[in-house]
């Protein structure tokens, strides 16, 4: 079996397309690279959707924390406290068993016990809480003069938020938010190691890396492959975020976004 055949058989294995059985004997390097790369599809899927959906909830929660209504403020504070104060690993377990008991009462909610939805919900809430904390800090760091100038020019209500507060908040929060995105992509590897089952061995990158390490008793090949994929993913995410950063900072004389992104690389 040539390497190209292997790629055809296993490149989409994590989605259930292609060869049914995972390789068990005479495992080649090509098989390891292909399958671990195939699993990365799940990490990207979880990361992108949770981040995109979490962004909006995070903005809402951050605003709610500055609300004048104490009930809304307390609620938002508690949301952030619960999801930031406890381990994601435990949240996955609790979420899965919660969904499992919901399934007993409302069979239509059984869909949540599947990793693709259930774990996504947990990740979405988790990243929303962490991002809300970042955005909240940025909201409080907006220079008072900027907001006063907006008032002076007659901005009120939503247009003030849309044109002044929100872009400034994003600009200030962006370096920390880039980190949040990177750590979220790393956190997606926890999904199949908590309670969520990998049905028919459809798992993520770490799931396959662990599979190969168990099968070959040699951790020195699969884990470095995984690390290589992740370093690539990290570089792509940093690249995309620094593009966004350049756009957010385009009215400023220097280009701080660029320097920040480089700094993240070495961290």
């Amino acid at each position, binding site marked *: 079996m040539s390497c190209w055949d292997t790629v055809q058989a296993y490149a989409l294995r994590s989605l259930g397309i292609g060869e049914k059985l995972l390789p068990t004997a005479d495992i080649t390097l090509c098989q390891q690279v292909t399958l671990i790369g195939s699993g990365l599809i799940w990490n990207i899927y979880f990361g992108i959707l949770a981040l995109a959906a979490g962004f909006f909830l995070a903005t809402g929660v951050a605003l709610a924390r500055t609300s004048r209504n104490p009930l809304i403020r307390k609620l938002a504070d508690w949301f952030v406290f619960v999801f930031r104060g406890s381990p994601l690993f435990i949240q996955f377990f609790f979420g899965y068993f919660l969904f499992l008991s919901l399934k007993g009462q409302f069979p239509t909610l059984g869909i949540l016990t599947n990793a693709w939805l259930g774990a996504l919900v947990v990740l979405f809430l988790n990243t929303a809480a962490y991002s809300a904390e970042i955005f909240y800090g940025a909201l409080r760091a907006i220079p008072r003069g900027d907001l006063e100038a907006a008032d002076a020019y007659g901005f009120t209500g939503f247009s003030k938020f849309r044109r002044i507060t929100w872009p400034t908040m994003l600009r200030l929060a962006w370096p920390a938010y880039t980190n949040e995105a990177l750590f979220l992509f*790393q956190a997606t590897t926890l999904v199949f190691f908590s309670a969520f089952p990998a049905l028919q061995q459809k798992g993520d990158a770490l799931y396959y890396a662990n599979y190969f390490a168990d099968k070959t008793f040699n951790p020195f090949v699969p884990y470095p492959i995984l690390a290589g994929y992740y370093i690539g993913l990290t570089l792509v995410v940093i690249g995309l975020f620094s593009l966004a950063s350049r756009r957010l900072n385009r009215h400023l004389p220097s280009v701080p976004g660029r320097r920040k992104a480089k700094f993240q690389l070495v961290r």
Partner: protein
Amino acid sequence: MCSDPSSLHGLSWFLCYLTTGKHLNFYASFGTVLLLLAVTAPVALALGFGGAMLARSRIAPLAWIGKAYIAVVRGVPDIAFFLFFVIALDQAFEYLRHRIKCPDWNQPVYQGNDFIVCDAAKLPLSTSPQWMHEVYGFFLAVITFSIVFGAFAANVIFGAMRAVPRAQIETAEAYGMTHRQAFWRVLVPQMWVYALPGLSNLWMVLIKATPLLFLLGVEDIVYWARDLGGSKTPQFTSFPHGDWRMWYFLFLLVFYLAFTRVSEIVLDRLMRRLTHGQAMSGNAALRDSSTAEVRT
């Protein structure tokens, strides 16, 4: 009174249920978590200090090693490191013992899909009691945690060393101190205040990483919560119940919330005391380091 649970009702049933032998093991496993934290924190701090010293070394290759250590551990998911090191360290130890104890062994250690060392090199020996296996597993977990968190600590300490005003070192050198003296007498004592926000953040992350012990094969709180919460039928236990895993994990969730909250309050107090009357832009440092968090 607990000898005949089927006759018990309500509160007394619960009291008996919560004091079964397995539940006592569950409570004891909280001790395992605390022990892990107590050992890992200082070791990781020491590794972090070493890593930061390496990273700022004036000898380029040493600086590269230090920086690579920091960058690689931070760039790759930490669970991958946990899973990797547990096997890799075990194999490294066994291989070393294999070379020492069985020098005339001529086959390769990797044969097909197996890692084979001679019996005398096995860790722990196949004849050793169960508790030896558990202690060895815990020992591997501690080293793994220390290596990973050492890199995070190195990153924080490296940043803190750079945050100490340059003029302080220059003054020290102007007074005739050597490079080494200036480092130990001026830089290191002043660095801690700058490192504290990052280190307290790291402590929180470390607390939240402790459930990963479960993945390393240690019988920790997650193991027992899964075991005890699963539904039990009357054939196997005198305390039959349905699937209670949700409640057990809710309990763990509350435990961790309380633990991180208390830590936060204590560390805030400590920070306020240490920076009392000190003119530093501590807030900025604090914000930068506390917003970016690894997730476990």
